């Protein structure tokens, strides 16, 4: 007695129903491999990132900026890379900074730990670490993001008033006694407010602070499109969006803008700016360089699976029409 063989499914149908297990396994394997190999991928930084880098580099050396650090471990691949790159630039230009958070109670601690890591990096490179309270100050967390941002825009002294930070060897001290905030009367006393965020705090900042001091953003990839709106309307001076933004910053930190390398070649040309140097020879490669090849693989796989699904659909349609 012959056993009935199950009918073999047509190719089109099979292409449309690849098992999830295999899709997930391929993604896992393909995105993991590049993490073990440091590859320098060719890159042409996007205009908003060029503007962000140029704005940071044009800040007066030894000045100060205000930073809203509203990210945690969930977006560290993007926000963490942006934070590292921006803080490295500020430290190298000896710019003091005050950090506050309005999005997540974890954010100030995440920022503090990241700065400690960057200080370790400086020590290893033989550079003086950035000293808390003297070179940077942690203002802490404000639970009501919109209200706090509104207060910072209109009366920063009363909103930051009463907050204390840890000067070396001294008990917690009023942050306005810190050299970072001395003489600050309003948010306009900061030449720039940098928002590193993975949430809506960027919107609040544009709504409340725009016009009082130049704004620069570092956002996640999914926030890129909405941030582009603020950039196009010139409400922000520039922004880094997602992993590509991190890699753009790291590329410019290595090569500068309109800055000829040893071979005379300009890696990042721009018609908007003159020659802006980078920091060659310093540890510029961070999460952007490390994760960018992984982004390539993930996007390539996404495109490939969409193509496979559509090819399957067309094959099925053609088979049905016969």
């Amino acid at each position, binding site marked *: 007695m012959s056993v009935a063989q199950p009918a073999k499914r047509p190719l089109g149908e099979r292409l449309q129903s690849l098992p999830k297990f295999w899709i997930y396994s391929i*993604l896992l394997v393909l995105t993991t491999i590049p993490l073990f190999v440091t590859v320098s991928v060719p890159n*042409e930084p996007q205009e908003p990132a060029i503007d962000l880098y140029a704005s940071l580099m044009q800040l007066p050396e030894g000045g100060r900026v205000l930073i809203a650090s509203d990210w945690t*471990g969930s977006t560290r691949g993007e926000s963490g890379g942006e934070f590292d790159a921006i803080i490295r630039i500020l430290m190298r230009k000896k710019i003091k900074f005050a950090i506050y958070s309005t999005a997540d109670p974890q954010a100030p601690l995440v920022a503090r730990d990241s700065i400690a890591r960057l200080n370790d990096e400086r020590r290893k490179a033989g550079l003086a670490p950035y000293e808390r309270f003297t070179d940077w100050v942690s203002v802490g967390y404000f639970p009501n993001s919109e209200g706090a941002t509104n*207060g910072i825009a209109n009366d920063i002294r*009363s909103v930051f008033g009463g907050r204390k930070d840890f000067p070396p060897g001294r008990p917690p001290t009023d942050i306005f006694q810190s050299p970072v905030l001395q003489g600050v009367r309003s948010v306009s006393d900061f030449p720039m407010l940098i928002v590193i965020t993975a949430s809506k705090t960027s919107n609040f900042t544009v709504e409340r602070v725009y016009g009082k001091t130049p704004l620069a953003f570092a956002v996640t990839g999914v926030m890129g*499109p909405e941030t582009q709106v603020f950039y196009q309307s010139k409400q922000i001076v520039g922004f880094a969006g*997602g992993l590509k933004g991190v890699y753009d910053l790291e590329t410019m930190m290595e090569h500068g803008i309109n800055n000829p390398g040893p071979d005379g070649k300009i890696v990042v040309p721009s018609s908007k700016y003159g020659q802006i140097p980078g920091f060659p020879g310093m540890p510029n490669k961070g999460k952007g360089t490390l994760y960018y090849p992984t982004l*390539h693989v993930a996007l390539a796989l996404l495109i490939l699976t*969409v193509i496979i699904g559509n090819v399957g659909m067309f094959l099925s349609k053609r088979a049905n029409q016969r």
Partner: protein
Amino acid sequence: MNPLHLLAQAPATNFWAEPNGSTSLWVKIVVGLIFGIGLIFALMAAPPQVRRPIVAGVTFLAGLFYVLFYLWPVPIDQKDGELPRNAVEGVGFWLKDALGVVVNFTNILTGFMIGLGIYSLLRIHLRRFFKFQKDWGFSLTLLLSMLAMIFFGYADWLSRLGERGALLDERSNWTLVNYGRDFLFEGLLQQMDAAMFSIIAFFILSAAYRAFRIRSVEATILLATALIVMLSLMGAVQYAIDTPIKQAAGPNGFLLNFQLSEISQWIRNTFQTSSLRGIAFGVGIGALAMGLRLWLSLERTGGNG
């Protein structure tokens, strides 16, 4: 004496400016906390006909402050000790002076919401654990995790208060509590946070594969646009496409418009931003309407009575 001077800012006094860690500060914090919690519970226990006008009144006053703050002229560069010259300036000065207090008040209220969340978590999981309900083991894990994080978090914070605090920025000076805090916060919480978020990649890939089909002209346009934008995010692909175009076109050539970077930028600047701006306008008008309804307590849904 000009009666309008009464509206000027009083000498700056901060009720909470007690020495750090002093008994008087702790007493004020505890009294404030008990008063706040008592107020919340009293409101929850009050009958709707009592609660409703209180909530509506406070909502209206809170909204009125911000409406006045935006519509009333407030001083841009107020000097220390400067007095208002007339009633209009007096109100402006008062609004500006009150802003910090209002912001602090809203921060404290939001802090209470975090406290309510913790209370709710504790109530659910303590009950489940003590009654040995289904999955009580997970509740125990959550409670122990909370306790451990609170213990090591506070111990780490206290260790940084002393004169040795600054030394703890260097890992070599750490003690057990600092390592404990680092292990729980950086080693576990942040890593799990990142792991949870990275799972999205699997869902996106699976969803795109199953749902992204060219079934209509609109879907084809969407897919083509998405493809261009995705390819433009891949530096190696962009380099491979743009370099031959640049070489073929030369400087200022017409062909340069067909670089991947140019096309993707055109899509972003022309279609993407204008669409998002349109959506933002719509959302803004909706938020204004909803804001008015909430301010005037016309919105009856969401537990407002």
